[in-house]
């Protein structure tokens, strides 16, 4: 059970549109895993399926070894879920809010009392104990919602855009809080549409767009690939030894940072250099006797992807954020 969250070909289709199109996700226990992608990438849908709020159309999803479809109650006991947009109850005090959720998990009264004190201390709301929930600021409500996910001491936290709508200081505080929670041994799956926001916090990330995983791994690895510059896709003709020889040739070349082998002689080269160097590399490869059928800069290299993602996110923010803000 070293994997806290695992999905396999997870698909969610809403009335013909594919919100999540086969997501494979693996989050090891104790990690802070970031789910990054633009608005509408399928982050929220994925988290909702993990939180047993939506049934997957296809595929499997497990949290702490429990299947979300077959054992939803087991999943609900080990997760703490914070939705991207959530409401608060009117006519409720801060401590009553936590007390209510603690009761939903069946905690005995003595433990509830102690837990409420501890959690309010943790999220820095101890002096707001008797305050009405709807009178709290947005940041405080966010922290209270985070506290509610912790009432039953879950091992996995599913946080959907917990930093949205927070001012920079509140973001820093949230980050500190999440680090503290990780130190307590919790696995955190956190979504955001801004990669830099997660970069310093997360131990690993998955980048998704249009319901598909584009990249996944440790932040350092993805960063290395981002810094490496372009990705060249090339197809080598010939049998297995010929392809292996070509791969070895590229690996040995100083302008190539890494080589990834795919089927049918396809190679992906993490390449550092400009177009002239790229042309020189091709000339060297052909000169060494490798038969190159295709040689091109990959359209979906991570950097471009990232720009594309952030550009779309910026455009989407302008269009989509205003009504949400107005509604609050």
């Amino acid at each position, binding site marked *: 059970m070293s994997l806290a969250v695992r999905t396999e*070909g997870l*698909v969610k289709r809403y*009335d*013909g549109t*594919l919100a999540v*199109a*086969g997501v494979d996700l693996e989050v090891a226990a104790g990690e802070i895993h970031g789910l990054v992608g633009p608005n509408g990438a399928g982050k929220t849908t994925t988290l*909702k399926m993990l*939180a*047993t*709020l*939506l*049934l997957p*159309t*296809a595929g499997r999803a497990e949290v702490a070894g429990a299947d979300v*479809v077959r054992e*939803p*109650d*087991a999943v*609900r*006991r080990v*997760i703490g*879920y914070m*939705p991207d*947009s*959530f*409401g*608060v*109850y*009117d*006519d*409720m005090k801060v401590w*009553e809010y936590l007390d*209510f*959720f603690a*009761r*939903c*998990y*069946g*905690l005995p009264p003595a433990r509830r009392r102690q837990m409420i004190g501890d959690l309010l201390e943790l999220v820095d709301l101890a002096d707001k104990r008797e305050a009405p929930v709807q009178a709290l600021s947005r940041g405080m409500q966010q922290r209270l*919602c985070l506290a*509610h996910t912790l009432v*039953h001491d879950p091992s996995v936290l599913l946080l959907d855009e917990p930093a949205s709508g927070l001012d920079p200081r509140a973001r820093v505080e949230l980050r500190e809080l999440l680090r503290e929670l990780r130190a307590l041994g919790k696995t955190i799956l956190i979504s955001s549409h801004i990669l830099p926001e997660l970069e310093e916090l997360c131990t690993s990330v998955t980048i998704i767009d249009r319901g598909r995983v584009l990249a996944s791994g440790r932040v350092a690895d993805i960063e290395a690939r981002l810094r490496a510059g372009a990705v060249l896709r090339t197809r080598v003709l010939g049998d297995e030894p010929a392809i292996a020889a070509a791969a070895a040739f590229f690996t040995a070349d100083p302008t190539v940072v890494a080589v990834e082998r795919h089927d049918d002689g396809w190679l992906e080269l993490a390449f550092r250099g400009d177009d002239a160097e790229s042309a020189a590399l091709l000339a060297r490869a052909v000169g060494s006797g490798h038969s190159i059928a295709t040689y091109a800069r990959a359209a979906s290299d991570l950097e471009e992807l990232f720009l594309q993602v952030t550009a779309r996110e910026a455009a989407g923010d302008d269009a989509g954020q205003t009504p949400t803000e107005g509604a609050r």
Partner: protein
Amino acid sequence: MTALAIPVRNPLRRVGAGLGWLATGMIAVGTKELRGRMRGRRAFAVLTFYLVLLSVFAWGIFEFQRNAAAMYATPWGGIGFPSVALSAQIGQSLFSGLLVIETLLVAVLAPAFTSGAISLEREKQTLDLLVATPLSSFALVAGKLISALAYVFLLILASVPLAAIVFLFGGVGPEDLVRGYLLLFAVAIGFGAIGLFVSALVRRTQVATVLTYLTVLALSIGTAVVWFFLYATSGISQVGGVVPGSGNTSAGRPAQQILWLNPFIADLDLICGTSSSGYDVACSIISAVTGKPYFGTTFGGVSGFDAAGGAVAIGVAPCPPNARCAAPAVLADVVGPEPIQQPTVTGLPRDAFWPQSAAAFIATALLLTFLSAQLVAPTRRLVRLPRRRRHAPEAST
């Protein structure tokens, strides 16, 4: 992890643990709801408004009856014919009036407190927080229903002292009042559950509220219209109840089940229950609905309409249990050529209709609460219906 997460072998203990878990959830939701509901002025404002309305209404009935009595008062003292303002009749009028107005208030208030129960959680985006907890859906909807009803029950019980005024006048026994309150509770549960169900079914609270009240209207008025239309076209000529020996029995009568969820028809049964003669409109209607004979068997041949027109002789008789007996002091005019030879029981047997009606309300409530629990979230259904596909499955991955 709670103790409940530990698998229990013994099936009985598993059932016990399941029920315990359900109770825990219902208490959680109920506590939360009541904390919210009883906080602030609204709860007490509604209670005050409710009691003031009832008081004004009761006072109005009393004044009406008093004026009627004054109109017929004779110069030499006492009361002339028709004897409208006997104390017992004031009591019965008060009882009837209060019962109907309380039914009306319950029919309006019970759905008001439940028709937002689930849809408000959806609108305020708090439902997802609950669905992600192990709180059972049934506990959620039942807790919502019970807490909403707890407040309606408070309203109903707060009216008991007011309703007890009828005992000053007499004509109504404590058992009548108890029946009345049992029926009110059942109506509150039934109509509350209708609101809850619509709230779980429909996304928007406004739509849910409108649909709920349309349903309540359909049950309160629509069913009566339908039933009486069917009755009028069924070929049964007598509107005024069933006369033994006339062949005018339950055959061909529209099913009384149509009216089971009509609280006002059940009210009529209770009103008929306090009637001293059994000759009033309430009894006529209940007789027509249930197909139960209007009179005791010795009174064949006299129709309800005849009886309602004039006074009817009543022998002084020991009153058998579960039968409505005439109060001899009220009507003692003797008509008819034949002397009465046997002890006579008048009116319908008691409890001809309302117990079925109350049971129907409670059964409906149980069913709708269960169905509401199924509608809370797609991941929380007992039976997952195969999803209809609008598009051909596309090749993914």
